[in-house]
């Protein structure tokens, strides 16, 4: 009897106080994050000091990268470059402001892609939960979808998009980028949501069935709440992959305005101005962290369902 109660109402019998712990750790996690970035910077400088300028060689094969100022500029040079104007053209913005506006563009495109991907992923997971046949049929395709090289896909999506005109609506280049971002983001969400939907123990499912609850009711009242601990990490992962997808798609399709394009543009001056491309690469990495961080805000509103988060 007690066993059944535990299974049926875990949040009552296992009142793990997620929220207070959560609150106290938010500050700490930010602190740890900042420390990690500083540590990376220190590590970068350490490598520059320890490894010879020409890199490490084992016989003919190069095993460690070059560490001269051209290949690995000093962290302070990169920071200093960020504060300088992009080019000497009059009215040229600083690298920092160019990167901020580029990151803002990419973030919006990535979030649009993440929204589309997450909704698509949830629907797909629901479909696969509903019909066992759909699951067996679709899972291989879902996995296969992630092995298609993005750079092969990107020009195709742009090609298809270029021919879409519905009334006054015209497909924009950023929509192709968002679509490619969603293509990466949907995968973790689908897999996470499917596991989450299937996570309620048999006893709980049977209780719903015994009470003649419809599939919709079971979904809304049992499976969806039970999936939260699985869904949140999946959504976070999805956000990070959406940013990666957006950046790669921007590079691939040459979409103007985002950080991916900026990396390539800056890379063209890598030999004369080596700090510039590194600044953009660092900005892209930070952007992924910001996106994942934004999405984890979702978790704050869902505390009561997070009794056993899969981290």
């Amino acid at each position: 009897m007690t066993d059944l109660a535990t299974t049926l109402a875990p949040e009552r019998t296992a009142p793990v106080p997620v929220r207070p712990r959560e609150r106290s750790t938010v500050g700490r996690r930010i602190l740890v994050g900042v420390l990690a970035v500083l540590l990376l910077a220190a590590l970068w400088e350490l490598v520059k000091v320890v490894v010879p300028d020409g890199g490490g060689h084992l016989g003919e094969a190069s095993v460690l990268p070059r560490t001269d100022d051209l290949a690995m500029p000093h962290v302070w040079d990169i920071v200093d470059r960020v504060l300088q104007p992009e080019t000497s053209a009059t009215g040229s913005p600083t690298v920092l402001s160019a990167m901020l506006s580029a990151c803002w563009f990419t973030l919006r495109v990535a979030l649009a892609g993440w929204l589309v991907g997450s909704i698509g992923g949830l629907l797909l997971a629901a479909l696969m939960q509903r019909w066992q046949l759909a699951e067996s049929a679709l899972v291989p395709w879902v996995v296969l979808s992630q092995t298609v090289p993005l750079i092969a896909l990107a020009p195709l999506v742009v090609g298809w998009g270029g021919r879409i005109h519905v009334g006054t609506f015209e497909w924009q280049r950023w929509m192709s980028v968002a679509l490619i971002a969603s293509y990466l983001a949907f995968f973790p969400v689908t897999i996470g949501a499917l596991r989450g939907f299937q996570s309620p123990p048999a006893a709980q499912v049977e209780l719903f069935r015994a009470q003649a609850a419809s599939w919709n009711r079971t979904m809304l009242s049992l499976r969806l709440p039970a999936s939260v601990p699985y869904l949140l990490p999946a959504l976070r992962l999805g956000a990070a992959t959406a940013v990666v997808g957006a950046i790669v798609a921007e590079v691939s399709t040459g979409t103007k305005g985002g950080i991916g394009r900026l990396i390539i543009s800056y890379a063209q001056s890598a030999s004369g101005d080596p700090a510039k491309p590194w600044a953009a690469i660092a900005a892209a990495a930070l952007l992924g962290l910001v996106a994942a961080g934004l999405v984890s805000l979702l978790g704050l509103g869902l505390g009561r369902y997070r009794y056993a988060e899969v981290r």
Partner: protein
Amino acid sequence: MRLNRLTAWGAVGVAAALVLAGCSSDSGGEAEEEPSMSSEVLIPVKLQLQWFTQAQFAGYYAAIDQGYYVDEGLDVQIVEGGTDIVPQSVLADGSVDYAIAWVPKALASREQGAGITDVAQIFQRSGTLQVSFADKGISTAADLEGKTVGNWGYGNEFELFAGMTKAGLDPATDVTLVQQQFDMNAFLAGDIDAAQAMTYNEYAQLLEAENPETGELYTADDFTAIDWNDEGTAMLQDAIWANSEKLASDEEYQETTVKFIKASLKGWIYARDNPEEARDIVVAQGSQLGNSHQLWQTNEINKLIWPSPDGIGMIDEDAWAQTVDVALTTKNDQGATVITTEPDAEAYTNEYVEQALAELRDEGVDVSGEDFEPIEVTLEAGGN
């Protein structure tokens, strides 16, 4: 507790609203060219570039800026390229009306079924160099023997391979081939003896880099370059390609082609006579490359175009034949040639560019640039 949850949802809501608002406001701002006022009467034309906005395409941007396209009744929108955008494929599948592409690459796409035709050969010369430090003593293709030779691959390597073959070297055994990156760092670090470089881009990057021994920028004296135009294995590069099928059947497209070529040529003539203004036009289009780099590029591009004795855009039969010959006979390190059979007669035509040139000559425009003199450009550190 409640407050906390509300704040969290509030933050999420605000973020979502921003995303939606941002995206919807983008639709206007992201269009690459603002549509012209009277676009109802203008014929919309899309031009696909091979790469991002830079002075390599100064003529087209100048033609928009100076209103040359509008004068011809065209509303031209320039579509930038990306690392994986193949202009000739985009053209063949009908997404754009014209594309800029190198001749050998376009011929390879043609052989795979892309129905495209070279209607104007803008660059009369090849801008590809093989650059070395002066102390390596590499000034001809024959000097490459036993050296580490960089190339970009992806069809950019054939002039180099043809040059080596012509000099009696076997590219597979007589040199060490290295795949080259975007930048010139591997060359500057000494990993590559002779690196591929475009006169208007990578070569300038070298002159924008600091020589660690002197603390000053490198100068042209520090390098030697093999010019494939001199070695006789140059291949034709930037050309305007049109859709062959529409060219054969669509009369309006034929007329548009003449107008498009005419206005584009005018743009290039503007860039010849006003290199600094042309640079400013390109910079204003949002190129992240520096001012001095863009001016250098404009000037080097001008050198590739001018003088054009038969008139800018004319496809020179000898240069075309040489390009086809190299494309047919030169094997790269994988043993592949660019094309396997002679391209058919549809591959290029001077019909449209001749009409455009005739109209320009009637207007008294100098279309051959016989007295063209390049300007002197001083590159700044990092191209700024």
